[in-house]
């Protein structure tokens, strides 16, 4: 098992820069998520850690050893591909034992190892089947079996659940997480699905356009987004952005937006210009005593909660309120914002202003 440290990692493909300059640290035994929209550089980062791409510059340390320019076969890392990439001309048993054969392990040891792995994954009954006819889930298990069979230093997974249908994905993600917890192996997992990342990850790196936007625990990333991109990418519905022009001082507890005074966590830096007031839907409540008012445009029933779309003087926003609260389309309601949870952003750069809420998070992001 291993700790992985990435320093100033950069990858260019001709004129295109896939990864700008990434630095982060993956602790031993962590389930680590690389999250971002397609083309953000997350898969390239993963492939560089595995050795399938060589970085243009920067360093990769696995257990303190610099391996940046070393070929994949010399890194002792397992990789689970999105399309599984099981060797099509071999049966399940051969697929799983293939990594052991390359190490020159004796036949008896190989058989024992394969037995152990198939027991863990519960695939004993398909061992002698060709991989062509297997179901998606079984292929996934065989791919995992091939990965865990040789006790690698770390696992790389490139959207391993992407090829499965929705129902099975849920089940497989639980199985994966359970497998990780049992083995305690460092795992780096690439996904574009924010829910999957929040559900499974110990830590998340959010990437966009080859740049790391934020790095932290799922909770920190959700509650204390470092940029507007992260705030919008994580959470469904995403964070509401109310745009206004104004001025804030360090130490102040509120902002003036279109003549309304709204609470914010205690600010730690001054700013003047175009600002964005970012609030999550669940931190808005409908309350007639509120002075900030909006008109109900639509209500979406979701069981225990409902999503209410409102039109306000500062733009449209969505609130998540209990579904037993009566809401009628067309009525005007007062809104109350939970000021402690708000993040203010600089509209131009998208960066979050430092406040009491996020100070600990932003410094190492």
């Amino acid at each position, binding site marked *: 098992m291993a700790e992985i440290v990435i320093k100033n990692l950069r990858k260019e493909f001709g004129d295109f820069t896939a990864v700008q300059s990434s630095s982060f640290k993956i602790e031993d035994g962590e389930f680590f998520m690389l999250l971002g929209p397609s083309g953000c550089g997350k898969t390239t980062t993963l492939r560089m850690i*595995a*050795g*399938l791409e060589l970085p243009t510059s920067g360093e990769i340390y696995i257990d303190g050893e610099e391996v940046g320019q070393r070929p*994949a*076969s010399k890194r002792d890392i397992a*990789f689970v*591909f999105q399309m599984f990439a*099981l060797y099509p001309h071999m049966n399940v048993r051969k697929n799983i034992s293939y*990594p052991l054969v390359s190490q020159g392990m004796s036949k008896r040891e190989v058989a024992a190892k394969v037995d152990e792995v198939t027991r863990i994954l519960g695939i004993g009954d398909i061992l002698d089947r060709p991989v062509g006819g297997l179901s998606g889930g079984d292929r996934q298990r065989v791919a995992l079996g*091939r990965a865990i069979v040789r006790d690698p230093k770390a696992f790389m997974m490139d959207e391993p659940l992407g090829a499965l249908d929705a129902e099975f994905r849920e089940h497989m993600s639980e199985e994966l997480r359970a497998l990780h917890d049992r083995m305690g192996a460092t795992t780096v997992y690439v996904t574009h699905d924010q829910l999957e990342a929040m559900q499974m990850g110990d830590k998340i790196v959010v990437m966009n356009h080859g740049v790391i936007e934020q790095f932290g625990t799922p909770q920190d990333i959700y509650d204390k987004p470092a940029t507007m991109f992260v705030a919008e990418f994580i959470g469904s519905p995403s964070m509401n952005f109310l745009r206004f022009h104004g001025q804030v001082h360090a130490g102040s507890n509120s902002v003036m937006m279109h003549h309304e005074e709204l609470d914010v966590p205690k600010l730690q830096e001054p700013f003047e210009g175009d600002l964005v007031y970012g609030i999550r839907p669940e931190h808005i409540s409908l309350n007639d005593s509120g002075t900030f008012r909006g008109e109900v445009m639509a209500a979406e029933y979701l069981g225990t909660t409902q999503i209410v779309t409102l039109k306000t003087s500062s733009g449209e926003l969505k609130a998540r309120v209990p579904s037993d609260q009566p809401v009628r389309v067309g009525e005007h309601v007062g809104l109350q914002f939970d000021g402690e949870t708000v993040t203010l952003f600089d509209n131009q750069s998208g960066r979050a202003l430092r406040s009491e809420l996020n100070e600990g998070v932003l410094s190492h992001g």
Partner: protein
Amino acid sequence: MSSYSITEPSSRQKWVAGSLVIAYAIITLLPLVWILTTGFKSPTDAIAYPPKVVFEPSLEGYVNLFTTRTRVTQEQLEALPPPATWYEEIVRDRDMVIAGPSRYGERFLNSVIIGFGSTFLSVFLGTLAAYAFSRFKVPLKDDLLFFILSTRMMPPIAVAIPIFLMFRTLGLSDTHLGMILLYTAVNISLAVWLLKGFIDEIPREYEEAALIDGYTRFQAFYKVVLPQAATGIASTAIFCLIFSWNEYAFAVLLTSGTAQTAPPFIPTIIGVGGQDWPAVAAGATLFLVPVMVFTILLRKHLLRGITFGAVRK
């Protein structure tokens, strides 16, 4: 898999389609049947008019193909001891004795060496080149591929004279090596292009999985890519073999003795002791066998091979 429905053809449609296929088969097979039967006819039957469909089979053509014979007088013939073998008997019936073996065996062997040699070399080099073009960043890749293709934009025989002069200077005229190199040069563009198409279709993840599993690039190529490309390699090999096996023009020009292949040799049989059509037909029949066997052995791959990649998954 796209969704479309196929309606089962009616029995009349099946009947029409079946008859067309049978008619086509008869048209293409007739010349082959003609060659095959002529090989077993006597010289008189072979040139009989109207052609004899029913005839008394004889192995004279095959005996003549493999031997050289001398005509002898009746007295000389009677002075000889009785024929020891069945083929000597056939020859003596024509007032001749066997003077020695013919060159057909050697020429046939030359064809095998040169045909299979150049096929192996084309496919071997072609696979390596196609893999490199398919997987690596090769500088000027598109230009190189176009250049390779451009070698086939005129008939190879158009450069016969320069090649003839080159071979003479290099001492490659009438050598096995020379012919193997020449046919490889002609076939390599076909091999590279065909195989590149096949290798492009093999997902890179297979090799990457092997690299991750601790294999070197070459091992990944050898153990994972090659088995996947077997279909493509088989069909490419068949195309290459058919070309070099049947090639006539270069063989006439560049070989005369040691390295002469069967195609330029077979017509020369005509001149030996009159127009010996059964011997020519026998030579042609035997000449067909290796390619036929090779193709039948690989036909499973060939069928998949020529339609491979035609349908996107």
